């Protein structure tokens, strides 16, 4: 599959970026149309512990309980669309566990579509279990064969009923972990921005081929293991692990990497937990799944409203299946998603969508650096910086990071975005480190390969270099 890098952004100006509409809408499943003028709820869930021990119990958990509960609630509440996402647990790398779930979920989607006319689809998100110390590419991992299993999982998903396909790939994780724990932005730029982009390009060319062969929509990826780890560790106002200025810059860098799936031919929607979605959408015009205020079952963030402002699918991230007063957890959280989506879609019908978008955006704009850079005007600026260096994986990641840092500093200087002393100090240190980096890819790789040679599990051969 050919790779076409983005060298210009999809929109004329930031004001065109809005929820429910993408330049390149996508249709799949049983009537689902994403980015075509209506926001769709996407429900994600996790099975109860222990269910994985029995094949039939496992299938029942996913199909007869989780999906059926969700579909019943969607009908009960009058929702016109429902996309569900199964993020595969690690045990699903075995055919006996994966196939009955994937095919069963496709069947129940079809059944409800036929019976009630609800538009339905399944996203199957396979696990990337590859470990850098054992090898990321086929033939390297003699212990677990995880690189081979990654491709096998993609085939299992696509051959058995996935409507849209995704993965949360792990390339560059060893350096991202180093970056987050040491506060080292260069390590993140090298691991996620550069090596992660190489890895994504490598695996997504194969995934797109598998999807095409099986007429499955190749959705997209996310830097869950990097930028999300950074964001979660930065946490809320009572947390004290990572500075939010640092996590915001990692998010911008991650967006240059997440784009690679789309550059390999994936069509979107990308993954909800990639908070880099607004930036990626600004560059590519492809639909994006997002999460925020209605994913409090999974985590707290500081931009729960703002993230809705440019989404096409609106997700709850994930909830463990269990009973609540109002029904099972999946039914309850779908209810919460459904109301939010109905609000967005009402605003579209009334021609008030830009007003609602701005309300979402302003609510969280100044709550922290991460929300600030993901506000649609800023996301657009970062997207432009990436596209200006679109053909150079290093320079575009660096441009994303530097542009985000400048946006934050400008916001602070203009008194729009308050920062703590420490957040400012870390921001300026990141700027200093990025500014001191070499101006071309070869020198950057040489510099970082030496600098990070002792990082546990780092092996440049994992990236074909």
């Amino acid at each position: 599959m050919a790779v076409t890098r983005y060298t210009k952004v999809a929109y004329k100006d930031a004001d065109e970026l809005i929820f429910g509409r993408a330049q390149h809408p996508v249709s799949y499943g049983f009537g689902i149309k994403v980015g075509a003028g209506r926001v769709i709820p996407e429900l994600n869930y996790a099975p109860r512990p222990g269910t994985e021990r029995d094949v039939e119990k496992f299938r029942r958990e996913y199909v007869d309980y989780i999906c059926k509960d969700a579909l019943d609630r969607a009908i009960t509440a009058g929702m016109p669309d429902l996309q569900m996402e199964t993020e595969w647990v690690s045990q699903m790398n075995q055919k006996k566990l994966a196939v009955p779930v994937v095919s069963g979920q496709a069947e129940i989607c079809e059944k409800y579509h036929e019976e009630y006319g609800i538009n339905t689809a399944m996203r199957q998100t396979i696990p990337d279990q590859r470990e850098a110390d054992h090898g990321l590419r086929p033939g390297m991992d003699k212990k677990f064969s995880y690189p081979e299993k990654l491709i096998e999982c993609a085939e299992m998903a696509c051959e058995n009923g996935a409507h849209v396909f995704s993965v949360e790939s792990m390339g560059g994780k060893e350096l991202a972990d180093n970056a987050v724990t040491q506060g080292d932005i260069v390590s993140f730029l090298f691991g996620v921005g550069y090596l992660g982009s190489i890895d994504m390009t490598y695996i997504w060319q194969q995934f797109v081929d598998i999807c095409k062969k099986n007429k499955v929509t190749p959705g997209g990826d996310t830097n869950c293991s990097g930028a999300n780890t950074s964001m979660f560790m930065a946490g809320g106002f009572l947390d004290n692990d990572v500075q939010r200025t640092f996590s915001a810059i990692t998010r911008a860098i991650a967006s240059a990497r997440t784009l690679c799936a789309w550059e390999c031919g994936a069509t979107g929607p990308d993954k909800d937990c990639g908070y880099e979605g607004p930036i990626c959408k600004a560059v590519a015009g492809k639909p994006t799944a997002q999460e925020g205020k209605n994913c409090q079952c999974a985590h707290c963030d500081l931009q729960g409203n703002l993230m809705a402002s440019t989404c096409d699918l609106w997700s709850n991230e994930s909830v463990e299946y269990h009973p609540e007063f109002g029904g099972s957890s999946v039914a309850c959280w779908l209810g919460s998603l459904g109301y939010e989506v109905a609000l967005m879609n009402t605003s579209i019908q009334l021609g008030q969508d830009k007003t609602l978008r701005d309300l979402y955006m302003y609510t969280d704009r100044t709550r922290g650096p991460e929300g600030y850079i993901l506000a649609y005007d800023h996301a657009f600026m970062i997207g432009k910086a990436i596209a200006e260096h679109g053909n150079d994986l290093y320079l575009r990641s660096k441009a994303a990071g530097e542009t985000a840092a400048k946006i934050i500093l400008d916001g602070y200087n203009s008194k729009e975005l308050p920062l703590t002393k420490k957040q400012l100090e870390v921001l300026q240190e990141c700027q200093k480190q990025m500014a001191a980096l070499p101006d071309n890819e070869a020198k950057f790789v040489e510099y970082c390969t030496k600098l990070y040679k002792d990082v546990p599990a780092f092996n440049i051969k994992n990236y074909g270099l």
Partner: protein
Amino acid sequence: MLSSKGVDFSKILRRYDVDQQVAATPQEMAKEMLPHDPVFKKVAEEVLYMRFKTVGPVVNEALKEKKPLDVINEGLVAGMEIVAKLYAEHVYYLPEIMLAAKTMEIGIALAEKKLEGGKMKAKATVIMHAAEGDPHDIGKNIAAIMTKAAGYDVIDMGRDVPVTEVIAKTVEVKPLFVSGTALMTTTMSAFPRIAAGFMAKGMNIPFMGCGGAVNREYANSYDLGIYSDKAAQTPPIADKILAGYDWKKVREEWDNIVRGD
């Protein structure tokens, strides 16, 4: 874009991080906590300010006039204790903890070379791992560094570790406790199997369940199971087990322990 002119965002949601930030610098806060002895003070400052490139010469200089064990305890460890206090006060953050711990380790390794017997005696040995099938190990890695920095010998078995290997290692080492981390609901189900394996071998060793998917209720749902919500809670729990708390008492006292009582 709507105009935000005149909007008071603080009336919508508050920036507690900005409102509550500590005004004092690390230097000001550490002033009263540093050792009085000038040699130990210099060593402690190397750790406090994360000078991993210069801690070597400073420790070697200190070793010329001080006993190795004293350089470790009254210099390096004392410095790390201040770092932990600054972390608790939200003046220092995770990167400072990691870099200070790295600095301390470099210093300890040098001091140990002069130590009779060759190695400082750890408080106890603990085993850590990420659950079978689970590649997410950043929380475990941070907990391992914090626990080492608190004086424990940590055997880090890595990630995606089979239940049988955890049990076998525990039989071999007989650690103070074992921890497992999991980010998936279906990988944390390894924990009760590990705990059951311990009991089948007659080992009354606490098993600490941690990680994004794990909650206190789950970790306490099987015999031997105890919980740690955050990496920084692991050392105080370890100290209580070392002081004689069994898994039942850790559960009973958990709120007090993690509060620092």
